[in-house]
C-alpha cells in the first residue's frame, strides 16, 4: 500500500466519524449504520473471495454471531462485548466447518454447499425451540449504557459499527498486500499451477475463510444488540446476509480491496431507496434490483473496479496515441525531405 492511499483512507474515516454531527435525523442515521455495516460484511465476505471462493453461506456466520452473543447474554448474563468475542469464535468455528467442502469442491459446488449450510442452520434454529426460541426468536434485554452495548439513540451504534468496519477493511488490506494475499490471489486464478510451485494453498484458503467467517460473526453480534430481536428468518436470512454481501462484492469487484466498499456504498442505499419507494407494490423493488444485478454482471463482468481500470487504461492508451500522432506529425517534414 502506498502512503497516499493510507492518507486518503484516514481522511475518509475522519469524515465518516464526523458524520453524526451533521446528520441528526434518526432515519438517515439508520441508513448510515446499514451502509457501514454492509461495507464491513462485504469486505469480510470478500476476504474469502481473495482465493476465488464464492460463498453464499455467510448468513450462517452472521446468524451464529447473533445467536451466540444473545444466548450468552440471556442464559449466562455475559456482557455483550465478551459475547461478541464469543460470536467471533463460534462463527470462526463455523467457517472451519465450511472449509471441508471448500477444500473438496470447486467453483459452483462450493457455492451450493455453502447455501445448503445456511439452510441447515436456519432450519435447526427453528427446530431447536428450547435453545433458540424457535421461529419467534429471542429478545435481547435493553440496559442502556456503554457497559451493556445498548443505547437509546443511534449515534453510539454508528460509532461501534464504524470502528468494526474500519478494522475489517484494515485486516482485508493487510491480508491483500501480504504474501498470504499474493499467494491466495494466485491460487484463485490457477490453483494447480500455484500448488505445483510449492505453495500450500489449502492452508491459506482455510485461513481466509475462517477470518472472513469470524469477522462476519462480529457483525452478527452487533446486529443482535442493534435490533434487540433476533430470529431464524432474519439472522440466518440468505437474501439479507449471504446474497447481499456477495452481490455488493460482485458489483464492486470481487477479490479487490476497494471494490466491495464501492459495491456496498452504491448498492445498500439503492436497496433501501427501492424498498421505501415501492412499499405499496410488493416485490417491485426486488425486480429492479435483480435487473440491475443482471445488467451489471453482463456489462461489467469484473465489477465496477475492472470497468474503471479498463476505462483508465483506454484513456491512457488514447493519450499515448495522441502523443504518437504528434510525434509523427513532427517527423513528417523530414519524410518529405527524403522524397526525391
Amino acid at each position, binding site marked *: 500500500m502506498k502512503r497516499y492511499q493510507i492518507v486518503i483512507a484516514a481522511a475518509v474515516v475522519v469524515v465518516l466519524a464526523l458524520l453524526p454531527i451533521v446528520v441528526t435525523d434518526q432515519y438517515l442515521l439508520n441508513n448510515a449504520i446499514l451502509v457501514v455495516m454492509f461495507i464491513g460484511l462485504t469486505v469480510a465476505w470478500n476476504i474469502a473471495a481473495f482465493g476465488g471462493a464464492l460463498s453464499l453461506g455467510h448468513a450462517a456466520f452472521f446468524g451464529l454471531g447473533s445467536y451466540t452473543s444473545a444466548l450468552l447474554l440471556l442464559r449466562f448474563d455475559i456482557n455483550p462485548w465478551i459475547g461478541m468475542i464469543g460470536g467471533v469464535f463460534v462463527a470462526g468455528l463455523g467457517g472451519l466447518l465450511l472449509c471441508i467442502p471448500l477444500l473438496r469442491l470447486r*467453483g459452483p459446488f462450493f457455492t451450493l454447499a455453502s447455501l445448503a449450510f445456511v439452510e441447515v442452520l436456519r432450519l435447526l434454529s427453528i427446530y431447536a425451540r428450547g435453545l433458540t426460541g424457535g421461529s419467534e426468536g429471542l429478545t435481547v434485554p435493553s440496559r442502556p449504557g456503554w457497559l451493556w452495548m445498548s443505547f437509546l439513540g443511534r449515534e453510539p451504534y454508528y460509532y461501534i459499527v464504524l470502528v468494526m468496519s474500519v478494522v475489517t477493511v484494515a485486516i482485508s488490506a493487510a491480508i491483500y498486500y501480504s504474501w498470504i494475499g499474493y499467494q491466495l490471489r494466485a491460487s484463485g486464478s490457477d490453483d494447480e499451477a500455484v500448488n505445483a510451485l510449492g505453495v500450500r494453498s489449502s492452508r491459506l484458503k482455510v485461513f481466509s475463510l475462517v477470518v472472513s467467517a469470524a469477522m462476519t460473526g462480529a457483525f452478527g453480534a452487533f446486529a443482535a444488540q442493534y435490533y434487540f430481536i433476533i430470529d431464524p428468518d432474519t439472522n440466518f436470512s440468505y437474501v439479507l446476509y449471504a446474497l447481499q454481501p456477495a452481490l455488493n462484492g460482485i458489483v464492486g469487484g470481487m477479490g479487490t480491496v476497494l471494490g466491495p466498499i464501492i459495491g456496498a456504498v452504491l448498492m445498500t442505499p439503492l436497496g433501501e431507496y427501492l424498498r421505501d419507494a415501492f412499499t405499496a407494490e410488493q416485490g417491485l423493488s426486488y425486480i429492479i*434490483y435483480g435487473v440491475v444485478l443482471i445488467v451489471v454482471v453482463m456489462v461489467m*463482468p469484473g465489477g465496477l473496479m475492472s470497468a474503471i481500470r479498463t476505462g483508465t487504461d483506454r484513456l491512457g492508451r488514447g493519450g499515448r496515441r495522441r502523443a504518437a500522432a504528434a510525434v509523427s506529425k513532427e517527423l513528417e517534414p523530414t519524410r518529405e525531405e527524403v522524397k526525391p
Partner: protein
Amino acid sequence: MQIFIQTLMAGVLLGGVYALVSVGLNLIFGVVRIINFAHGELVMVAMYMTFWMWQLWGFDPYVSFFIVAPVMFLVGLALQRFIIQPIQGSSSAMKIFVTIGVSIVLQNLALYLWGGQYRSVTTSYTTSVLTVGGVNISVPRLIAFAGGLLLVGLLFFFMQRTLTGKVLRSIAEDRDTARLLGIPVSRFYMFATGLSAVLAGVAGVLLTPFSSAFPLYGAQITLIAFIVVVIGGMGNMVGALVGGILLGAIQTLTGTYIAPGLQQVVLFALFIVVVLVRPQGLFGAGVGTEEVGLK
C-alpha cells in the same frame, strides 16, 4: 409396518417429481455447462400458468400441458439467447450471479403480479385416492410420478437414439471438437435450454393438482434438484431418477419417524456427506465435470 409402507409410498411418488425437475437441471448443466439457479423458478412460473388457465378459462391442469410446454420452450430459448449466451465465456461466478438475478426477478415478478398467497387448483380428482392392500395412493401424485417416469424415459431414448440427442451428447462430451466438426453449438445450446425449460414446465403442470403455487416455491425445489443432481451424478439421467426417488423417500421417512421440521435438514446433511465422500455422485459422473467444479 402399515405406516412405513404408506410413508415410503408417498416418498417415492414425491421423488418422481424431484427426478423430473432434476433431469431438466441436469440437461442444461451437462450440455450448456451452466448452473441454472433459476430452474425452480421456471417450475414456479409453469405452476402459475397452469393455475391461471384453470382459474380464468377452466382448463384442466393436464390439458394446459399443451400450452405450457411450448411457451416454456420459448422462455428457455429466450433465456439462453439473451441472458446466458452473452456471458457464456465468463467465469463461473458471473454465470451463477446472472442466473441468481433471473431467479430474483422471476420470484418477485410473481409476488408483484399475483401476490404472496398460496394458489391451488381444485378438480374432481384432487382428493381421489387409490387403495391398494390398505395403502392409500393419491391419484394426482401417482399421475405425476408416472408422468415423471415417462418423460425421463422419453428423454433417455431421445438422448441415446436420435440424431439431435447424439449431437447434444457430443457437445456435452467435447464442445470444441463438436464445433470443429461444424455443429452450430450455440443453436444446440438454445435447444437444450429450451428442452430443460419444457421439463421444468411439465413438472409444474404435474405438481399443480396437489401443490399450491407461491412465489418462493422455486427456491425450495431448486436446492433439492441440485442435491438430486449431485447425488445421482452430473449428466447422469438414470442417476437423477434414482436420486430423486431416494431423496423423496428419505424426506417423507424423516418427516414421519424423526421430525417434520428436520426433513430438509436431513436432505442437506446427506448432500454434504455425499459431496465429501463421493463427489462424483452415487452412480458415477458424466464427462467434463471437473470443468464445472467437481474433482
